């Protein structure tokens, strides 16, 4: 007998998500991930000053705002045929790296840990709704303490971000050319000092914590694989003097790694609430989500820390819930070491700002891997104003809706998973959180009638 269950809200994510799953003989036989919010950023951006996209698009997401400042800046630089200096790149990549640290610390401790560790139940926020807690009390309480101790380090990661970026969330630093301000000796030494504390926490607390959890929940190495297709647009890569510090633009499918080609991206809206003109259509038959369906070579791909760790060769243990979670934690350590190199290569007192001119007519794209995976912004400029803007977020890849009979990435990962207690399907929440969903990012899209593969980029 097949039973249908619905989880809504899926909490401890950014934004609103519902999961509907059909379960037979304690296995998930069908699943839908449904983005439950829509704002329409791409429509809002039309007619605005192109430079304003850098600060405006950050408001898509409160936990990964810096990601959008990166992609919009890259798209504008592309449209302007402008190449930033290496110092400019280092500076903005440092800001971006700080956001990785903030995100990974918070996603692991505040969003993931409550799935596996019982937090002090005298506080209403931590009342539990399942019984699958397996850690011995002493270890459980140690990691519960780390939940609170981590708050200091995620806050400090944002503090590093603000030292160069003015404030966080929604930084003012990243802009065309690199960042607005200059590196100074006092800022550099502040960054180094904070980074060293965060690095110690990651290496001595966070990494051991994830392996402790993995020991007690080892079946999650075999749950939630999905298609196993991995994609990255690359990040912290291709510096003139430093080479690639992390990962190049690559894809992994059918046991083969190949070079990523941006022209092979398409986006479909067959099961998303958009009509044939790509206008929102809440009445659309069969539609079930505000998230569209990005595809690469017409198939769904997983993006995020595991994809990057795999493609860069840092971690290739497997593709599963636990591997995704471990890869995220290990990546925090990797990013900290990349940041150290970039900070060590800063030259104090170099201004990277100029008086930039908006092109009358142009187009550009900005593709970069951000905390949750591959993020792309595409911009058209006409008469000095934004005439078209398209954003495909990492969570749009991971939470994509189905096309034809082909399920989205996370949907496929949920199908086949065991659910031991149908009234408390804790397994499904653990699978979806391993992707670190950001629905506020995934569901703002509004393409104004154009498919992404029709864009010609200069």
């Amino acid at each position, binding site marked *: 007998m097949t039973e249908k269950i619905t989880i809504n809200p899926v909490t401890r994510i950014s934004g*609103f998500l519902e999961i509907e799953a059909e379960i037979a003989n304690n296995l998930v036989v069908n699943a839908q991930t449904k983005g439950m919010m829509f704002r329409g950023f791409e429509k809002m951006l039309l007619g*605005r000053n192109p430079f304003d996209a850098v600060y405006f698009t950050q408001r898509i997401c409160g*936990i990964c705002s810096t990601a959008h400042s990166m992609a919009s800046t890259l798209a504008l630089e592309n449209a302007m045929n402008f190449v930033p200096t290496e110092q400019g790149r280092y500076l903005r990549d440092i800001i971006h790296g700080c956001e990785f640290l903030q995100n990974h610390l918070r996603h692991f401790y505040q969003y993931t840990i409550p799935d596996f560790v019982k937090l002090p139940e005298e506080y209403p926020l931590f009342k539990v709704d399942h019984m699958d807690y397996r850690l011995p009390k002493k270890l459980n309480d140690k990691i519960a303490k780390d939940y609170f101790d981590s708050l200091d380090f995620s806050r400090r990661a944002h503090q590093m971000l603000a030292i160069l970026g003015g404030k*966080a969330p929604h930084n*003012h630093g990243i802009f065309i050319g690199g960042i607005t301000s200059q590196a100074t000796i006092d800022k550099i030494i502040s960054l180094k000092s904070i980074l060293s504390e965060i690095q110690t926490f990651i290496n001595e607390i966070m990494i051991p914590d994830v392996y402790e959890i993995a020991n007690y929940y080892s079946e999650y190495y075999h749950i939630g694989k999905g298609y196993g297709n991995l994609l990255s647009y690359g990040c912290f890569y291709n510096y003139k003097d430093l080479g690639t510090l992390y990962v190049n633009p690559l894809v992994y499918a059918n046991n083969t790694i190949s070079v990523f080609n941006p022209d092979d991206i398409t986006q479909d809206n067959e099961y998303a609430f958009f009509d044939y003109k790509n206008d*929102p259509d*809440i009445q659309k038959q069969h539609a079930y989500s505000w998230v569209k369906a990005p595809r690469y070579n017409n198939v769904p791909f997983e993006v995020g820390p595991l994809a990057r760790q795999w493609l860069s060769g840092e971690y290739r243990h497997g593709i599963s819930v636990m591997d995704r979670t471990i890869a995220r934690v290990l990546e925090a350590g990797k990013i900290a070491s990349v940041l150290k190199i970039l900070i060590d290569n800063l030259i104090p007192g170099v201004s990277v700002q100029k008086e930039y001119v908006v092109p009358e007519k142009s187009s550009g794209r900005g593709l970069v891997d951000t905390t949750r995976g591959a993020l792309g912004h595409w911009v058209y400029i006409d008469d000095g104003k934004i005439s078209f803007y398209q954003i495909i977020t990492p969570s749009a890849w991971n939470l994509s809706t189905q096309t034809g009979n082909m399920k989205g990435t996370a949907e496929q990962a949920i199908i086949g998973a065991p659910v031991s207690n149908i009234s408390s399907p804790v397994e499904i929440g653990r699978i979806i959180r391993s992707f670190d969903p950001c629905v506020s990012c995934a569901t703002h899209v509004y393409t104004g009638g154009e498919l992404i593969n029709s864009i010609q980029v200069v």
Partner: protein
Amino acid sequence: MDTPDLQCPYQESRLKTTSSLVNQAKSNITNGILKKRNLVWLELNGCSGNIISLLNGQDPDFQYLITQMTNFIYSNSLIAAEGTAAIDQLFSVIGSDYILAVEGAVSLKDNGAYNIIGRNNGKLVTGLEAVKKLGTSASYVIAVGACATHGGVSAARPNPTHCVGIQSVLQRKVIKLPGCPCHPDWFMGTLAYTLLYGESPLDNRDRPLMFYSTTIHERCPRRSYFDRGIFASKLGEETCMFKIGCRGPVTPIDCPVRQWNGHVNWPIGDDSPCIGCAQFGFPDAMEPFISYDTTREG
């Protein structure tokens, strides 16, 4: 409380800083003078950046907020429970004494269908329905961040999902903390004041005077450049950014003295103009954010 003497906002802010208020609230709770009150954090149509900003709070921090200051009942981003258990916990506060903090805008289009925050007894709950239900019976309602105070970026033209601030759907006093995001101190201080003394003194648009009394321009460390007519012509210069569109002159907020993220920096300190994120009208009335010499002829 009685109407306070508000002639000098500096005096007010010195006496009632966030940390002194919070310490007072804590000691009163410890000594049994005050009872811990329930706090509900409701996310609506927005970016969830205000709860992230709240996690950046320091003295008091988030741990202190949920363990010492309040019974923190609900946050979609942080609650351990999910699905039915979570939504039941959210609505369980109705009938009790609670303070409601809301971030995100209320989407009105198609009766709220563009922002679903959960299911209650199988039925979809819109943000519109949730804020009306919880907002009506709350002891205090605090709108946290630009989207909740006046629609913010969620309501930017052409406002595809007809977003409005929460005041538009609530017939009651809403304390407003505009900002994108709201600084953790603005929220913690307002909350601490509420716990200790009730509603904090507000301006004519319901913003707490202890944070929103004075424009950035009045206290800007670059004010002397303005007075001497020394203006930046591009980002990255350490002078007055009035001519490249700085909104400090129209934005009443304490960023110049408080600064961000452990008080280390702020947008003007980062050689970029204030974009007026803490003023009503943000973003549309504050654009363009980036321009090069707005006073240049031709």
